[in-house]
Every structure is written in structure tokens, then in C-alpha cells.
């Protein structure tokens, strides 16, 4: 049994680290090393949470949560500092720590200006994201939900390319519109619950089971869904994503795709469905419809892209469509698949963005048409690229397949037509992926670019990711085991 402040430590270590970095704005190498140390420590900490699973359930914790912390915060409003970790949070927190470390490493050399600030923002964002994954109080959740946006906004705005400001603002505005409406819905559920029970609270476990009239439930859930759909992003709310990805620095893209998109799905799983079961069921066709539309539409569009990052960005939209489909189906298998797919997509897309970033760093272009024949010049890079591209295209044996397949298996019961369409959506990623591989790695070079192959640091990053991809692809059982209890609890079955 770990002493209580473990979750707090987990939550605020990166933030503390970022404050520490504030003092190092002038010493870049020190800042780098400090940031990495913090991130590694956080990863260690996150992984150590794995071993808390077996331990006895803390008192007053909702079922399924093996780490739990509940302290009063703003008592007048019934706001509490409630953190909890179950299997879902555990995996996502580990992913967060992992991807953040990768993001730091990816921007190790590529960021030349305001290094300390860059790293500081990444760490601050890590805290925000972990906060989202741990909060069990809606107010606290909202707080972190917003908090994680600011560093990302700066990352895109300061170190981005081309239309960075446009993209940063667009990203922020989109998410704000969604999340402010969610805030209103949070207030709404808070008040309704308060009026019904006389206890005004934002605690998730208190609010679950609040009764709504059908219409109210729909409106409130609609606001939640909107906020999460923007984050997902579901078609047609996705247009911020390609821009944000394209113009973000590599670390920004990595975190955006690897982590931020997951928060939407997480929110829907943790809050959307449990709080509004009835409304969620009513709107499930919408969710599934949008999910399938996203899978097909985004994957189709990805094919036409000329910019590699944009291509990967659209592919993200498509992949997240699968996650949405799994959530919409809300069967144990599909939900496990969705959660697993969140991890998988995090790893794969992180790798792809990192790799595109590596190219960009050397050749200063992301246009597909500028490349060609890279295989002969940088074979190690190319091999990794093929691996991750294939993972992204859902090749069995690699991680994405596992998630997608579970999702499809689970959702077929519920939504036959959608699943069949989603199966068609499975081949579309292949179409654009092989095009990307062919045009970038194969054929003759189209512009004389002098490229050097991966450095040891980059190989290290990618090896970790590749191993994660393969291991999950071949042996997802431990992860699925972790997810079992929370998923069973969420879907109403026995664990």
C-alpha cells in the first residue's frame, strides 16, 4: 500500500518540474537534462502504479479504483480534490508519461530557441493531461481539461511552422467552445443533483445515478458529447486537427496525437456514458454514425494529402473513429478494444509524427513530393517508418490491429451496418499508407536531399516505440487484463 499522496505526487511532479525549469531559462543543456530527469522519474512513478493494482482497495474508493484520494477543496461549492486510478487511468497515465518523455527526446535538438520554455510547457502539459486522467471530480476534471490546452497553444504558437498562429488559435477556439458548453452542462448536472439530493457535489460517484428528464439528459449529454467530439475529433468537428498537427512542432504533434486526442475518448468513457446512460444510449446512433463517417471520410481524404503531417493527422481522425465506434457500441469487448486502441494509436501516431519530424528537421520540408528513394539513403529510418506505417494501417501482429479487431468484434453485435462499413474503413488506411511509403521511401529521389540516418537517440526512441508496438500487437493480454475490471464495471457486467 503506497502512502496517500502518491497520486498528488504523480499529478504535480511534472508541474513542479516545469516551475523548476522556469529558473533555468538561460541554461539550455541543464534545462534539457532536468526536464528529461523529471519526465523519466514521472514515467517510473507511473509504472510503479502498476504494482498497486493488487493491493487492497482504499477506503471510500469507488469500485475498481485501487488508488484513491479525496480531500476537500472548495467546500462552499462542494468541490473536492478527488483523484482516483483504475485500470483505465493507469494505462493512460503510463502512456502519458511515456509519450511525454518521447516528446522531450524528440525535441532534444530540434528546438533551438527558448529551449527551457519549450520543455517547461511540455512538462506542464503532462501534469494537465494526467490530471484529466485522474480526476474524479467534475470541476477538477474541467480544470485540468482546460489547463492542458494552454501549453499546447503555446507550443504550436511559438515553435510552429507556417500558419502556426492561425492553427493554434483555431485549436484553442474549437476546444474552448466545446468545453465551455460542457462546463455549462457540468453546472447543470451539479444543480440538478443538488436539488434532487440536497447535496451539492461535483464528485463523479455522487453524480452517477442522477435522474434527468429525457430532454434535460439529452441536452446535458449533448454538451458533453460536443466537447469530447471536438477533442476526438469526430467528423465534422475535426478541421482543427490537420491544421494544428501540420503547424505544430514535432513534440506538439506527438503530444497532440498521442495524448490530447485520448482525453476526449476518456471523457466520454469516464463521464459521458456513466453520467447519462439513457441519453448516451439515445445518441449512440449519432456517435456511431459520426465515427464511421470519420473512419471512411478522413481515411479517404488522407489519401489526397501532399503534406506528410497532414496525412498522418487525417489518419488520426480515422483511427479515432474506431475508438468512437467502440465506445458507441459499449460492449465489454468493444470498450476494451477502444481503450486498447487509444494506447495503440498513441504509440503509433507518436512514432509517425516523430519520424516525419525527423525528416522535416533535416530536409525542412514535409511535402511528400520532395522526397523519394529514402530507403537507399537512410535504411534504418525507412525500416522503422515501414513498421510504424504498417502498424497504423492495422497489420495484424502489430498493436493497432488488436485494438481495431476487438472494437469491430465487439461492435458487430450492436451495429452491424456500421461495423461492416468500418471494415471497409480498415483498408483505406492501407491505401494511403502504402502510397506514402512508396512515394517517400521507394522510387527514385525527386530532389537531391542529403540525409543522414538516425542518430542513436532517435534509434532509442523509435526502438522503444517499436517494441511497444510489437509487444502489444503480439501479447496484449496484460493490458486487457488491467482493463477488465473497469470495463466490466462500466458496461455493467461482473468483473
Amino acid at each position, binding site marked *: 500500500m503506497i502512502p496517500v499522496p502518491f497520486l498528488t505526487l504523480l499529478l504535480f511532479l511534472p508541474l513542479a518540474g516545469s516551475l523548476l525549469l522556469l529558473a533555468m531559462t538561460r541554461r539550455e543543456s541543464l534545462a534539457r537534462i532536468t526536464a528529461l530527469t523529471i519526465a523519466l522519474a514521472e514515467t517510473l512513478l507511473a509504472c510503479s502504479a502498476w504494482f498497486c493494482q493488487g493491493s487492497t482497495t482504499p477506503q471510500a474508493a469507488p469500485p475498481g479504483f485501487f488508488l484513491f484520494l479525496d480531500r476537500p477543496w*472548495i467546500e*462552499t*461549492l462542494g468541490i473536492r480534490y478527488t483523484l482516483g486510478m483504475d485500470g483505465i487511468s493507469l494505462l493512460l497515465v503510463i502512456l502519458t508519461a511515456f509519450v511525454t518523455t518521447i516528446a522531450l527526446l524528440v525535441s532534444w535538438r530540434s528546438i533551438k530557441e527558448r529551449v527551457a520554455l519549450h520543455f517547461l510547457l511540455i512538462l506542464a502539459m503532462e501534469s494537465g493531461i494526467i490530471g484529466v486522467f485522474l480526476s474524479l471530480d467534475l*470541476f477538477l476534471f474541467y480544470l485540468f481539461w482546460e489547463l492542458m490546452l494552454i501549453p499546447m497553444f503555446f507550443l504550436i*504558437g511559438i515553435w*510552429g511552422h507556417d500558419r502556426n498562429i492561425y492553427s493554434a488559435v483555431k485549436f484553442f*477556439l474549437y476546444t474552448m467552445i466545446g468545453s465551455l*458548453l460542457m*462546463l455549462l452542462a457540468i453546472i*447543470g448536472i451539479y444543480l440538478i443533483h443538488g436539488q434532487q439530493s440536497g447535496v451539492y457535489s461535483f464528485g463523479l460517484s455522487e453524480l452517477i445515478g442522477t435522474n434527468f428528464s429525457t430532454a434535460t439528459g439529452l441536452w446535458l449529454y449533448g454538451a458533453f458529447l460536443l466537447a469530447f467530439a471536438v477533442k476526438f475529433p469526430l467528423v465534422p468537428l475535426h478541421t482543427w486537427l490537420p491544421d494544428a498537427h501540420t503547424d505544430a512542432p514535432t513534440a506538439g504533434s506527438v503530444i497532440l496525437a498521442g495524448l490530447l486526442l485520448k482525453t476526449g475518448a476518456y471523457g466520454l468513457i469516464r463521464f459521458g456514458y456513466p453520467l447519462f446512460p439513457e441519453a448516451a444510449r439515445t445518441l449512440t446512433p449519432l456517435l456511431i454514425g459520426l465515427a464511421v463517417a470519420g473512419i471512411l471520410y478522413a481515411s479517404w481524404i488522407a489519401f489526397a494529402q501532399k503534406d506528410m503531417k497532414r496525412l498522418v493527422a487525417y489518419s488520426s481522425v480515422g483511427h479515432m473513429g474506431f475508438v468512437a465506434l467502440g465506445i458507441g457500441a459499449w460492449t465489454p469487448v468493444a470498450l476494451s478494444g477502444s481503450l486498447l486502441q487509444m494506447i495503440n494509436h498513441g504509440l503509433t501516431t507518436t512514432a509517425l509524427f516523430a519520424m516525419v519530424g525527423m525528416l522535416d528537421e533535416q530536409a525542412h520540408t514535409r511535402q511528400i513530393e520532395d522526397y523519394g528513394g529514402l530507403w537507399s539513403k537512410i535504411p534504418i529510418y525507412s525500416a522503422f517508418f515501414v513498421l510504424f506505417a504498417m502498424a497504423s494501417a492495422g497489420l495484424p501482429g502489430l498493436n493497432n490491429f488488436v485494438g481495431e479487431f476487438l472494437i469491430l468484434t465487439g461492435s458487430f453485435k450492436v451495429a452491424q451496418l456500421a461495423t461492416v462499413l468500418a471494415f471497409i474503413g480498415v483498408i483505406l488506411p492501407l491505401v494511403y499508407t502504402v502510397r506514402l511509403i512508396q512515394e517517400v521511401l521507394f522510387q527514385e529521389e525527386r530532389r537531391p536531399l542529403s540525409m543522414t540516418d538516425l542518430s542513436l537517440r532517435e534509434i532509442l526512441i523509435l526502438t522503444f516505440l517499436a517494441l511497444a508496438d510489437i509487444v502489444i500487437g503480439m501479447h496484449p493480454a496484460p493490458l486487457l487484463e488491467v482493463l477488465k475490471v473497469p470495463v466490466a464495471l462500466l458496461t455493467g457486467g461482473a468483473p
Partner: protein
Amino acid sequence: MTTADLWVAFPLILLAVGALLTLLLGAVTRDDTAATIIGVAVTLGAACWLLQTPPAPLAPTLGLSAARLPRLFGVFFALLAAGVLGLSSGYNRERGISGEEYPATVLFATFGMLALASATNLLTLFLGLEAMSFGFYILVAIDLKRATSGETGLKYLLPGALSTAFLAFGIALLYCASGTLSLQEAVPLSVTSGRPDLIALAGWGCLLAGIAFKLSLAPTHLWTPDVYQGAPAPVVAFLSGGSKAGAILLLLMLLPATADATLLRVPLWGLALLSMLVGNLAALRQNRVRRLMAYSSIAQMGYVVVALLSGKSGGYQAAAFYALAYGVISLAAFGAISVIEREGVGETLDDYRGLGRTKPFASGVLALAMFALAGIPPTAGFTGKFLIFASAVRSGEIVLAIVGILLAALSVFYYLRVVVTLYCKNSDTAESSQPSIPEYLVLLIASAAIILFGLWPDSLILLLSDLLQ
């Protein structure tokens, strides 16, 4: 007059004496450092006094009270004035605003605010408000080196005088309806035999029109951008933070006393909606930072009116909270702007390019203020907005809440524009000097307050809800 009365009036006396002393000092020396020091000392003294003395309900012979709400706002006004004075010394020196008039007038305006806060009758209230406005008439025009200062003064004075006329007429009607000037008895919109007191209602109409000006609510807002643009930055901080808080306080003193404010719902509703719309939309494409802030303040006051509208369900304390929070944020924002402008940076957004690098501290504070105004947690701005929308939803003003929140989301755009310009664009200016120590202190304290009110608003909310019961 008893000793107890004296204690109640003491902060007012302190400020008046301070103002006079400052004026007298002007005859002796041209150095206004001493005047500033006196001003800061006096305001801080008043604040300390208010904090120290136990709350006294009434000082009947003076028509003043030292109840807890006025005391809270009094402390706020005094501290704000101290902050403004701290900011002004450097700014004024740079801009060539010299002389004892400036600190004296600041003290006078604070004097008015305190009088307003502690008023128990409509006359003192009215005069407090007028004294405050009067101070600002002078202050906004005080930078005579600027070609537009006279124009600024005129633009504040003329509508101000008109609003005074409305206020006076409104109070007169209220007086006619009730026969007394006592706050508790004059304002209730008593409903007799199914009909509200019509004269009082008409009085309320005029009163609202007058207060709408002070709060710069649309459609009485047109002076705001011009004045914000023309006045010295610390003065704008004071105007934006202090005079608005004063006007909100006025409403907070009047509205809860009305037995049934639902009659005023529609006018307030309209004012709120219009202000939020006008402020937020007009700020979208505004290129001058101060005008942008002006429109933003219009919008923010719209939110406050939303809160006032849903007063009984927690709206009053939300409005009070927001008044204080907005005051602190304005102080931070315009403090930062004053530090930035002091060193010769222009007033358009383009001039703010890349300042995040050359003036990290001031830019950081300004960015924080922007995020707070945009309602991003964990800032006071967020908590305030949260309280406001919570009260709006609770009282069933769903439409207003949704429109307001959408507009708040829209407003993020222009707040972000400022931040973007500060941080995301490259500058061509070289690194410049750090802010002076008083500025540094003021901005630091204001920023800390923004964060603290955001993270631990508990005690303040508790206090306010206690006070406004």
C-alpha cells in the same frame, strides 16, 4: 458625533486628509515622489484600518456604515488605489505627468469609492459615486502632453454628466415614491394591491440607465473604448477595476433591497445580452490593445449583469466575486500595459509583437490576465465565470447562460490574439529594462491574487455569501 462614528469615518477622513496633504505638499515641493508615498501610505493605512476594526453596523449621525460588505470593498478600493499609485510613479515620470494633482485626485477618487461603499442613504451613495466619477474626469485627462487628453476628458465627462442627470432623476423618483433617502426603505419596489409602485419603477429605470453608463453596458458603452485609449494606463487600471467595482457595489447595495427584482429582469436581461454581444464581437477585430480591453470590459460587465439578474440564487455573490476578481485582473492587465507602454511601445497589437521575449515579466502578467479574462482555470476569472454561470443556470436563465458561454468561447479568440502577439511573433526590439520595484510588486501581487482566487476561492466565496445573505 461619537467616537464610534469617528472610527467608522476614519478611513474617509484619512483619505481626505491625505488628499489635502498631498495638495499642500505640492506648494512646498515639486517632487511628487513624496506625494506618491503619502498616497500609498494613506491608502494602505485605510485598508489596514478597515481590516483591523470590528464591523460596526451603522454610524447613524453620519449616514455611514462599516458593515462587512462595504468594508471588504473598501479594503479592495484602498488596495487598488495603492496599487495604481505604485504603478503610476514610473509611468508618470516617463510621460511627464508631474505635480501633486495626480496622487491627490487618486486619493479623492478612492475617497469617493469608500464613501459609496459605506453609504447608508441615497444621497451619500450618489455623492460617493459622483466624487469617484469626478476624480476620474480629472484623471483621464491628466496627461496633458498627449494631444488627446482633453478629448478623453470630454468624452468621459459629458456622458458622465448625462448619466449623473439620469441617476439624480432616478433617485428623485425613488424618493418621491418612498419619502426617504434611506437605502433600505427607498429602493424596495413594493407591490401594493397587485401593482408595483410605478414611480419607483420609473426611478429604477432612470437609475439603471445611469448605472449602465458607469458599468459601460451596451448601449451606453460608446465612451469606453475612447477613454480607455486616451487615458494614462494606470488610470485605466483604476477606472476599469475601481469604478466598475464601485458601480457593481452600488447595484449590490440596491438590488437586494428591492423586494422583488423580477420587474427589472427584462431591462437587465437586455443590458446583459447586448453588452456581451457588443463587447465580445467588437473586440474580435480590434487592433489596439486598450480598445480591445475596453470592449472586453464591456463584455465582462455583461457577465456581471447576468449574475445580478440571477441574484437570489447566488448571483449577488457571484457578481461581487467577479467585481473583485475583475478589479484585480484589470490591475494586472493595465499594470502590465503601463509597464510595456512606459518604454515607448505603441498601442497597437503589432507593437506588442514578441514582447514575451524582451519584456518577459510584463508580458507574462499580461498573458495571465488575458487567460483570466478568457476564463481559463485556474484563475480568478474562471472561478468568477463559473459562479456567474452557475447562478444563471440555477435561476433558470438558460438562454442567457448559453449565449454568454458561447460568447465567452468566442472571446477567447481576441484574448488569445494578445497572447499570440506577445509570444508567438518575433520582435524586432531589443531586450529592455526590467520594471521598477513598485511596479514589480504590484504586478506580482495582482498575479498572485488572480491565481489564488482561482485556486482557493473558498474563503472569499464564503465571506461573500455570508455578507450578502
